């Protein structure tokens, strides 16, 4: 399953989730449910900045921040990372945090597995031998 399909599945499953963006290790957008580029960059940039700020402040003593949830009165921002992938999502206010985080982690895992899996090689076309040779 590719990243765009995984995000589409995620927004279908999680009713509280409004928008989501998948980002790779370099911060490049892999897939997004937001149509316009500025909205995608705003959500992705904000979520990654939250993860970095939390890591800088609390990621000490050999433990790393893997998920963050910021609850605001207007809605919540979730950011989760797993290896070389991160996902940032926006939900309605007061969501079921556990369920949203579970869905985000599942989406990350699905995309990571799809990226790790080697693409099937194309078989070289057989040369047709001339009849009677």
């Amino acid at each position, binding site marked *: 399953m590719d990243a765009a399909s995984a995000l589409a599945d995620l927004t279908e499953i999680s009713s509280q989730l409004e928008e989501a963006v998948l980002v790779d290790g370099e911060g490049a957008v892999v897939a997004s449910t937001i149509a316009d580029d500025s909205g995608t960059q*705003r*959500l992705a*940039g*904000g*979520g990654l*900045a*939250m993860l970095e*700020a*939390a890591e800088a*402040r*609390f*990621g000490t003593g050999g*433990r*790393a*921040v*893997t*998920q*963050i*949830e*910021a*609850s*605001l*009165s*207007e*809605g*919540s*921002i979730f950011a989760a990372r797993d290896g070389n992938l991160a996902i*940032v999502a*926006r939900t309605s206010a*007061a969501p079921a*945090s556990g369920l949203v*985080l579970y869905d985000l982690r599942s989406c990350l895992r699905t995309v990571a597995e799809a990226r790790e899996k080697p693409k099937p090689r194309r078989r070289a076309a057989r040369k047709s031998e001339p009849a009677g040779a």
Partner: protein
Amino acid sequence: MRRALGLLVLVGGPLYLRRRRDARRERVHLHFDDGSTVTLADDAPEAARLLALARRAL
């Protein structure tokens, strides 16, 4: 019966109001790879920057 109902309102009312107030408070939850979590209330100084970043992302 009336006394039990009064007791329920006396005890349950403040608890309900407190839960509602807490649900509306802004806060940040951090989850770490070792399974631990940290919750920062909106009055915590560390939460201010994270909430500002979240507000910008919204």
